[in-house]
């Protein structure tokens, strides 16, 4: 393979923001028994941003959220909201509100009483008319005007979800915390609610902190994503940055899908690593910081970065189409490559004449731009 200059411009993962953060975690640890649920979390949340904690269950994302809400106190470190250390402040004293995974609506109250609950706790008391006005406005925002007297358990999942949102935003919190708020909804409704959430966030300008295990949700909603694993934040960045420049195989795998080819680093020069696979191939990609010759590593190449051809091209590898899934705009192929195994290839339909679509069993040649491949540490 020829040496191709690689564009190594990484976007910074922590965008410096001139405004003081609305909330922050400083060296936060949380231990439950002998389980470390939060391991040295450091994070600043900018006012008005939509931040997501993304990770599998048990990665500590919910613990991080619950420490912001005040349901858990950090074992050590500081939780700051609006510049104040709030470690010892109970949930009812914090200017944050949460939308619970199962909504946690009060079953003995109607929609309006649920939404007005937070306002009724205020001291000095708010006037009834004022509460009614704010509740009406919140219902308007979540498009449930006219549902005031409804019983919450008479409503559909999507409507309950909106009541839960209204119950939180009516208090105009500094932070709105969302604990997997869409997990209980079916796929179609989830898509609708994702769009609504995003609109809502732009409309009211409250800082949102979302916890999710759904990468698609995190990618489509967030300004910034913290990918978590075993209690640690392993990478923070905007969705595109995370997708294009994952720092580890874990992130590349969790954010989007990718093909991974294991091997050993042969040498690193000018930020380009050459990887030797066990089958004797030499593959190149942008080197992850810290990789050096002799390290175990893997090459990550996104399915849409692999190109398929009928004829061999310089540096292309032969393979066979093993499976083909027509997805409309794209076609997803599973290509069997003798040395590399199965590779996912996503080919756009646009601009391709029909005769360019490949059939199952057809021999093909694949290649990719080494500048679009990444050599990552294996975990």
């Amino acid at each position, binding site marked *: 393979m020829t040496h191709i200059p690689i564009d190594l411009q990484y976007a910074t993962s922590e965008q410096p923001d001139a405004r003081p953060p609305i909330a922050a975690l400083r060296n936060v640890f949380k231990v439950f028994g002998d389980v470390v649920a939060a391991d040295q979390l450091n994070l600043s949340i900018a006012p008005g941003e939509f931040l997501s904690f993304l990770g599998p269950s048990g990665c500590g994302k919910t613990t991080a959220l619950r420490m912001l809400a005040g349901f858990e106190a950090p074992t050590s470190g500081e939780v700051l909201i609006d510049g104040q250390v709030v470690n010892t402040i109970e*949930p009812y004293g914090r200017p944050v*509100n949460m939308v*619970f995974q199962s909504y946690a*609506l009060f*079953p003995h109250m109607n929609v309006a009483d649920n939404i007005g*609950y*937070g306002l009724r706790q205020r001291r000095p008391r708010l006037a009834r008319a004022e509460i009614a006005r704010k509740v009406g406005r919140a219902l308007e925002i979540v498009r449930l005007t006219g549902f005031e007297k409804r019983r919450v*358990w008479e409503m559909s999942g999507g409507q309950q979800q909106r009541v839960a949102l209204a119950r939180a935003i009516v*208090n105009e919190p500094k932070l709105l915390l969302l604990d997997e708020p869409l997990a209980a909804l079916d796929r179609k409704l989830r898509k609708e609610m994702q769009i609504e959430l995003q609109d809502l966030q732009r409309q009211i300008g409250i800082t949102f902190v979302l916890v999710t295990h759904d990468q698609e949700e995190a990618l489509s909603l967030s300004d910034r994503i913290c990918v978590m694993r075993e209690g640690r934040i392993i990478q923070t960045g905007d969705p595109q940055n995370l997708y294009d420049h994952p720092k580890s195989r874990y992130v590349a795998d969790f954010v989007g899908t990718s093909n991974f080819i294991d091997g050993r680093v042969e040498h690193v020069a000018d930020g380009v690593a050459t990887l030797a696979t066990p089958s004797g191939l030499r593959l190149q990609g942008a080197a992850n910081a810290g990789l050096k010759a002799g390290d175990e590593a893997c090459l990550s190449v996104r399915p849409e970065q692999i190109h398929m051809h009928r004829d061999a091209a310089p540096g292309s590898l032969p393979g066979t189409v093993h499976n083909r899934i027509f997805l409309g705009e794209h076609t997803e192929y599973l290509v069997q490559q003798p040395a590399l195994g199965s590779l996912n290839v996503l080919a756009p339909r646009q601009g391709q004449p029909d005769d360019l679509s490949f059939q199952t069993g057809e021999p093909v040649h694949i290649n990719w731009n080494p500048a679009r491949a990444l050599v990552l540490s294996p975990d």
Partner: protein
Amino acid sequence: MTRRERNWLLVTPAAAWFVVMLVLPLSVIFVFSFGERGPAGGYVPAFTFEQYANLPARFTAFKNTMILAPLGTIAAMLIAYPLAYQLAVRTDPKWKIILLVLVIVPFWTSILIRSYAWIFILGGSGLPALLEMVGIEGVRLIYTPFAVLIGIVYGYLPLMVFPIYVSLDRLDKRLLEASADLGARPFSTFLQVTLPLSIPGVATGCMLVFILLMGEFLIPALLGGGKVFFVGNALVDLFLQSRNWAFGSAVAFTLIVIMLVTVTVYMRLIARLHSGRQDISIM
């Protein structure tokens, strides 16, 4: 066999039981209550309202029952609620079962024996003797309405604890978190969320205990020493001692009517308090 026939077959044992054990005896009591006492006791057929006219003779028994049964129910509720709350909300799950078993342990011994224990505790050489040692003299506990109250609260407490425990245990704890998150302090949360949502358990417990207390006779007999008579004691006396079945039937029937009216009014009240709530079902 058609589906309809099968359904009939399924309810037949229950229906038979209901007719033989409830409807029949009640009908007998109803008929007897208009009869007369035979010369050697028992029942002589007649149609007279004489027995009902004679009810004021047992006024004290009705009065005691109508005061001590509601009082005992309320006292048991006030004691059971914090206990149930502690068990359901505050206790580590691994201790729950053990502590719940401890609540039922008294049921492993006959109420007769446990009431005898109370005779000793409340009697002259029990609590009053202890009080005398600290200088409080002349306290008389046994054979007073207070002794009966203690006895019935003690005896029926577990029946009150369980329904309340169940309703508190079933309470979604995230609702409490949601309440705190929305700015309510712990006591406000209790008043606005926990208490209203545990009303079904309280209602069930109160009904259970109240109905049983209305028919109680053993505890008043033992701890009331013949001075604090319940309607139940009057019935024992009328049917077993003086063998005045007709009058006994009238007393029994009156008690049933009082109970029916009270329970109906009570259920209506609870239902109105929670009209339209799906999470409420009484008993």
